[in-house]
């Protein structure tokens, strides 16, 4: 592995000999102390949006309420992402420990894991781990229960407010924001909802301390990140790497020597062409990612790649808001029309403007992020859209 691509073993590292050792050490600490550590660590959410975890927790604990909730978002549905599956099958204990710490800090008595419908096979293992957690919690005097709720296969239910709706037994449609989950989340109570990986990071920060954690990554992107590497690569798989590396180094490590583009952050992320590999940082200061890294070599048609993404969004949009529901159809049919020659090449400009409108007017992150892949693929591979 090259010098710049730093393998890390924070998340997948061995469990300690004593079950829930870090949790046991942490429950005795003051909440302010823990929040301060999280703040100092610079930890940002690992789901992709990158909201500072410490602030999310702080806002939730400060919100007056008779009940608060902790939710672990395990509805990993972004195309090209499969790292939570690995975390949940290898180190579920770290996830539950992280959730329990959150419960202690924000004053929640109940936590839920919303598990992607397709990950049903993980359920027995997780339930077994919950039994172990329950025993430990009893011993430690922790009043925090964890339950699992199954998703049913809708991508949109990974959007936090749609996830709440789904958990409440309703149709998975995103809510208007504000109010944000920290004020009104599951059952309209203040709720912390974090990605699977974030909870593990929290636990590791509690174990190794913020100073150690900060040593990894860059100014805006602290710590390590679990990447799901797929596509035209001889080394497809899960890798825990330091954040903030240049994409060029990543491609050197994982590419097949003929890499044309990398889709960073899945279908809702950005497509980076070869000429921009050098200047692109993987992290919040550059291209953020929830972990999906799809590598394409010169044998791939970027038109097909985009078409595939658009078909995905067209189907996975919840359908409630106009820009997303109709916009996705227009983008997909629009590039088809240009390809067929039914619409002039300038129609692509019209579609670019439309994608911009979707970005600034859609109700939730799904519709807003369609423009990411659309504009980055169309502008960088225009000739492939036409010929």
């Amino acid at each position: 592995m090259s010098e710049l691509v730093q393998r890390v073993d924070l998340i997948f590292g061995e469990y300690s000999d004593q079950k829930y050792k870090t949790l046991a050490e942490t429950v005795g600490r003051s909440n302010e102390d823990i929040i301060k550590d999280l703040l100092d660590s610079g930890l940002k959410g690992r789901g992709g949006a990158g909201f500072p975890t410490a602030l999310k927790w702080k806002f939730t604990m400060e919100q007056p309420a008779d009940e608060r909730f902790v939710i672990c978002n395990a509805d990993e549905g972004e195309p090209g992402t499969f790292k939570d599956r690995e975390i949940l099958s290898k180190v579920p204990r770290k996830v539950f420990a992280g959730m329990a710490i959150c419960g202690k800090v924000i004053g929640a008595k109940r936590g839920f894991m919303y598990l992607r419908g397709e990950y049903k096979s993980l359920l027995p293992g997780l339930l077994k781990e919950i039994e172990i957690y329950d025993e430990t919690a009893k011993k430690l005097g922790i009043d925090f229960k964890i339950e699992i709720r199954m998703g049913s296969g809708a991508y949109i239910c990974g959007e936090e407010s749609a996830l709440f709706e789904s958990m409440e037994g309703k149709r998975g449609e995103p809510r208007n924001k504000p109010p944000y989950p920290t004020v009104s989340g599951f059952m309209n109570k203040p709720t912390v909802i974090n990605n699977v990986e974030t909870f593990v990071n929290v636990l590791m920060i509690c174990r190794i301390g913020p100073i150690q954690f900060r040593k990894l990554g860059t100014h805006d992107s602290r710590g390590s990140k679990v990447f799901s590497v797929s596509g035209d690569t001889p080394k497809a798989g899960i890798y825990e790497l330091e954040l903030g590396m240049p994409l060029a180094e990543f491609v050197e490590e994982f590419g097949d020597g003929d890499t044309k583009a990398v889709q960073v952050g899945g279908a809702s992320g950005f497509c980076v062409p070869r000429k921009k590999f050098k200047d692109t940082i993987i992290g919040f200061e550059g291209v953020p990612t929830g972990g999906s890294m799809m590598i394409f070599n010169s044998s791939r048609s970027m038109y097909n790649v985009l078409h595939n993404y658009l078909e995905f969004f067209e189907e996975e949009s919840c359908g409630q808001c106009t820009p997303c529901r109709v916009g996705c159809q227009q983008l997909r049919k629009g590039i088809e029309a240009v390809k067929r020659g039914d619409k002039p090449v300038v129609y692509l400009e019209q579609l670019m403007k439309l994608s911009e409108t979707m970005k600034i007017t859609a109700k939730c992150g799904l519709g807003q992020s369609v423009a990411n892949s659309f504009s980055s693929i169309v502008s960088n591979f225009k000739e492939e859209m036409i010929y």
Partner: protein
Amino acid sequence: MTKTKKINIKIDGINVSVEEGTTILNAALNANIHIPTLCYHKDLCVAGNCRVCVVELKGAKNLVASCAMPVSEGMEVFTNTGKVRLARKHIVELLLSEHNADCTKCYKNGNCELQLLASEMLTGEHMFLDLVPDQHYTIDMFNPAIIKDDSRCIRCQRCVRTCEELQSVSALGVAYKGDKMKISTFFEHPMFEVVCTNCGQCVNRCPTGALVERNYVDEVWDAIYDPTKHVVVQTAPAVRIALGESLGMNPGKIVTGKMVAALKRLGFDSVLDTDFTADLTIIEEGNELLTRLKRALVDKDKKVALPMATSCSPGWIKFIEHTFPEYLPNLSTCKSPQQMFGALAKTYYAQKRGLDPKNIVSVSIMPCTAKKFEANRPEMRSSGYQDVDYVLTTRELGIMIKQAGLAFESLPDEHFDSIMGESTGAAVIFGSTGGVMEAALRTAYELVTGREVPFDGLNITPVRGTEGEIREAAIKITDVLPEWKFLEGVELKCVVANGLANAKKVMQAVKDGKADYHFIEIMACPGGCLGGGGQPIPTDREIRNKRKEAIYQEDKGMPIRKSHENPEIKQIYAEFLEKPLGHKSHELLHTHYTPRKRY
């Protein structure tokens, strides 16, 4: 009341100070700045899904939906920037691209919010591809009351919210996702096979032509032009205080006289009044209630169904059939005034006028879409023919008046024809929530005690319903006439509810044994018939309140205000019906309903 905080914001450079929690949309309205909307409706919760109302905020990358965004101190809003205008135009273009915009074939042509927006945005040559041909839209035309055309639907979900929030019926819901997302029914069954009550509140709120009443305008014109037919028309109490809105007048105008004049000019052979049978309903229903009370109190009959509930509102009837079928015996057996009128038009009226009932076409003008369904019920053929042939909404009458080119506002006031045209103030208030209760009490109290109800000016304000509320009242009966001795000292417990969501609460309380009412008045629509599904669009709380004022004003101005004093009522009992709840009444004026399943 807690003191609310004032928030200061700037909209398009204008300083605006509003209460905390106000949305940008309403704050802008305060500053006389109009922001276009589609999915927003004053009666409903905020959806924020059409995105037409987006505005720009200083310092924010994305635009925000002004209907859903509360103001915050120091916020700077821009409602008319280039970015906003392009976004709105894109959104309207997107809606048009999936909308069957064949406007000239649409019933809502000229009264469509999407059409209006398109004209404001100068959409002209469409920006995007036409998606309609690839969609497999369905049109549900099986229902006698409501037509649902998915090709006109813009998925704003106003109907879904109406059906759930206001009516707690939830006949309409969202099905599928993404490009296939649509508004549908349980397992996509046709509307007439599901729990839909035909109340038409969705029709009243649909911004486009996706949900409309089945109109019978042409059928009625054909009947009018047919020289062999004698066309009688009856008009419901709530039509006369709302029809003006369909013809460009402000809400709250009483147009009874002009309406009668217009109907005569349209060519109806006889213009009569549903209010007449509203008075008749009071006599029959009042007696029915007293009979049930007697059976319960004197005969100690355990099987007598109390509380008794009103049966004038066909939306409510269908609701109880589906939702509380075990309480069907509690419904008054009285038909609704419309159906009493229909049955009498082809019997009593035909005899009096020497007409063959087969040549009579009976038309009614109603604030209601459920009345269309009611007229088609198999129970409603006691004259030997379909008792009411065609039901038109207030809106449809508005269309006919426009078609005929009548200058409505300048028409002289004219009087209803006779017979069956005479009515009282008690009948007029049938159009408002609490009205049937008040009218019944005015008559029943007097019948039992020989004295007028002990309320100033006959205005029984404790039972005058308030929109969105359940109103309970207890009236103590004392010093009764000898034949009603069993009612001495009885406290008559009444409850009034409007909107099916409230109806459900009342019935649930009865079911749970938490309520000991004697008499329940329910109207399916918010505010009662004055807020009916067939009333002019738009209808919202403010407009309903104006209509309500007009109704009580009309009552006050009537020379007779008690149903039992209506001379034509006395006449019909003397000449035809003999006595309340008599054999003829039973045959023509009373009915029973059918239990239906929820699914």
